[in-house]
């Protein structure tokens, strides 16, 4: 199957207009010696029916879990049916970036509404139209802080998602900044003393996450104060966005930037992507932040309308001086997030509470198992760390029942042997939890 509608006659007529006898003539600029006869080693073309069968058979090699107890940066939440129905409107998903505003009011307004919802949710004044994912949003915010401050060092809590940390390191290396990692305290929060000990005049920013990778909430206000005292910015990330239904947003605690992964807002797990990088900021950074922005304006008759605005920050205008190189972003994921948040509305709080209830129940049940111990005392949202007698065996037992177990922390934190990070969302029923406990007994 190919999707070129031309018939033989069409091609003949068009060749005549172009003045060629053979399509090959159009490729004359490709030096003869580099001309390909055929792409090598390709499987045969398929009809649509065969493609469907092929993809079904590949899919069937996956094993869909009955339950997922891992969060660790990607969260199994219920997605209301409206989301996929509306995101599936072809006018949305077959469009590109709304460069031509008059013909793209739908997306522009939806993005403007998304920006507003994210700003409100994070307690900030502004938010952009999306970044690639939580990790790259965090890394770009770090680069921005370095650029703005002209300082060479950034401090990142060790309790930040290890992959986010790694991405930040990559970006920092490429930009010539230093990353320094701040350990966590016994209760699972950042070690505030160590943080303030390492903050100096060369520190561009501090990066924390709350809830952090261990599920613990950070006490953000004192961290912000500490950072600001030394003229450093505070970038506060979050793990599961639904926590914002209940937890005080970093924007209300003094953060300069709030970044995070928006997958929880109406986007499927998708084996890791596409996801949604959220970046919110204080108003004063409006002309410095990366990424697209939809803005409200009026048309020549004075009617309200929306456009992409402050494009002079962007690469297509400012090239190497742009605030970022981002071009395509995650617009459709942002649309899904906007629809999700509008659908839940204040029920996001009820959802967050439900996550807390389930988590507390799971935690209390697991902590009662012989030899199991909760690691940290700081308050959590929907994840917690527990040390068990044999983490691998626990996960194997769960896997045998079609359950994806806890995230094994020893990989990233060698000191946390047999420590598992569990996540409980609204998808977990009481009977599921009781079943899990029976399996592990």
């Amino acid at each position, binding site marked *: 199957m*190919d*999707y*070129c*509608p031309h018939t033989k006659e069409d091609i003949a007529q068009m060749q005549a207009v172009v*003045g060629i006898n053979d399509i090959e003539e159009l*490729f004359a600029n*490709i030096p003869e010696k*580099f001309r*390909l006869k*055929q*792409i090598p*080693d390709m499987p045969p073309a398929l009809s*649509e029916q065969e*493609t469907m069968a092929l993809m079904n058979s590949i*899919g*069937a090699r*996956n094993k*869909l879990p009955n339950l997922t107890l891992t969060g660790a940066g990607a969260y199994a939440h219920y997605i*209301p049916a409206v989301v996929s129905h*509306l995101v599936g*409107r072809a*006018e*949305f*998903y077959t469009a590109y970036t709304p*460069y031509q*505003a008059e013909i793209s*009011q*739908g*997306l522009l307004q939806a993005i403007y509404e998304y920006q*507003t919802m994210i700003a*409100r*949710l994070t307690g900030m004044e502004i*938010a952009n*139209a999306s970044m*690639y994912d939580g990790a*790259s949003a965090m890394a770009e915010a770090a680069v921005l802080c370095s650029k703005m401050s002209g300082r060479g060092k950034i401090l990142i809590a060790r309790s930040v998602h290890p992959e*986010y940390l790694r991405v930040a390191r*990559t970006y920092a290396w*490429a930009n010539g900044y230093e990353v320094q990692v701040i350990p966590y305290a016994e209760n699972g929060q950042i070690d505030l003393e160590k943080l303030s000990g390492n903050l100096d005049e060369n520190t561009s920013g501090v990066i924390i996450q709350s809830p952090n990778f261990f599920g613990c909430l950070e006490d953000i*206000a004192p961290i912000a104060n500490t950072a600001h005292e030394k003229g450093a910015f505070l970038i506060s990330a979050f793990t599961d966005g639904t926590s914002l239904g*209940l937890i*005080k947003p970093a924007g209300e605690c003094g953060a300069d930037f709030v970044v995070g*992964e928006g997958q929880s807002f109406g986007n*499927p797990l998708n084996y890791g*992507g596409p996801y949604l990088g959220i970046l919110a900021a204080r108003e004063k950074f409006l002309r410095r932040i990366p990424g697209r922005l939809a*803005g409200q304006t009026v048309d020549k008759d004075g009617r309200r309308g*929306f*456009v992409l605005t402050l494009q002079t920050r962007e690469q297509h205008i400012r090239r190497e001086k742009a605030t970022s*190189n981002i*071009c*395509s972003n995650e*617009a*459709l994921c942002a649309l899904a997030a906007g629809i999700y948040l*509008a659908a839940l*509305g*204040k029920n996001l709080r009820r959802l967050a509470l439900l996550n*807390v*209830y389930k988590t507390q*129940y799971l935690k209390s049940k697991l902590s009662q198992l012989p030899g199991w111990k909760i690691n940290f005392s700081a308050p959590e949202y929907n994840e917690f760390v527990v040390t068990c007698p044999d983490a691998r065996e626990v996960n194997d037992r769960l896997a045998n029942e079609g359950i*994806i177990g806890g995230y094994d922390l020893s990989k990233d934190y060698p000191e946390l042997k047999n420590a598992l990070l569990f996540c409980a969302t609204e998808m977990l029923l009481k009977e599921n939890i009781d079943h899990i406990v029976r399996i592990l007994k």
Partner: protein
Amino acid sequence: MELIFELSKVGRRAADVPLSDVPQIAPESFIDKKYLRDELDLPEVSEIDLVRHYTKLSQRNFGVDLGFYPLGSCTMKYNPKINETVAALPEFTGLHPYAPHEFAQGNLHLLFMMQRLLSNIFGMAEFTLQPAAGAHGELTGVMMIKKYFEQKGEKRRVVLIPDTAHGTNPASGALCGFETVTLRSNGEGGVDLEHLEELMSEEVAALMLTNPNTLGLFERNIEKVAQLVHGNGGLLYGDGANANAFLGKTRPGDLGFDVIQLNLHKTFSTPHGGGGPGSGPVGVSAKLIDFLPVPRIVRKGQEFHWSENFPQTIGRVRAFYGNFNVVVKAYAYIRSLGAAGLTRAAEMAVLNANYVKEILKPYYDLPYDHACMHECVFSGSKQVAESGVHTTDIAKRLIDYHYHPPTIYFPLIVPEAIMIEPTETESKETLDNFCAAMIAIAREAKENPQHVKDAPLTTPVKRLDEVLAARKPDVCWKK
């Protein structure tokens, strides 16, 4: 149209939440109040209002499914529905990225095969599927170049970028700490070889070349260019955003490129989603394999799993493995077309662009009048001179003819640029009708320029005040 916030009414909800089946411990009892938020200011709407709101918004938006969308450099080809259908299978959407590899063999197999097929199509040694978009791929590629020289102990701080390049190229170079130096085009729109020779030095890490370039022209002297770059120890980076032009016709690996990023959402027909998600795989020649981002897929017998065990890697450029679900669509697309189908796509894309070029040539300035590849670049200069009608005006007027305008004012080296990329999925009838509209507008510009300047006239809003938007930015609604 009303904003979702303006529809809001206290107490309404579109989505409900189950009642708790476990004990409801008041959060205040174990989470200190300082951690809890006071207010949650989200819209309160019913499901019917939500659905109507977004359905109406969708009707105020133009997509490929509604009509021709010749946005140059963006390859807005038709996105086959089968790809949407297969990517929505719960087997592909439902897995957690940290699912043990026994749960994910289908996904891993697909990703592995995709890397292989891309390697075959582009003649590269290996691919990573981690980057989320083209620009992200560029960044990843440039990082690998940086690492390559770091490993060799060479300090090269310059990246050369032709004046025709897309803005992401210099921005990506800059985001990697390189100094970007602009390479001039020659009269034909290709690389000015003399200038390249002049600029090449041991300072130069790489030349970032888009081939065909953004004028839609294939670099005839590619062999020479590669020699000059490699001869000075530099690397040749290929911006593969225009790969739709040469699928099955030639391979960047064979042409001497060391790194190339692709835009699956362009060349491989995954929908653009109103601005994303895309996917920006990066292919490398053998000498850069070790620097690829981790994790990488490793095959053990019939089993696949992820490995981070590549000590020279640049690390990660995002969490997890890339825009997996986008890759699913592109994979289905490649398997549908096969080798011959991909080749035919390139041929027809190039034929379509040349056809439009020939038909419109008498009406619009064509600064570089050679056989083009998959897109052609006109200039509105004639219209400006004749009647003060600018390229923006022409673009806005096209909207009234039910077309999405081409890319305008890019590439920068063409004044008043009008960059038309028809893609291979458009029929001759569509091209003929579009050309007729362009010709009609050229006539209108002469006979009734004000009419063109007033365009669009048929949209829910008239021309919007972008200056106001930038001067008094309002990016977040306040009651």
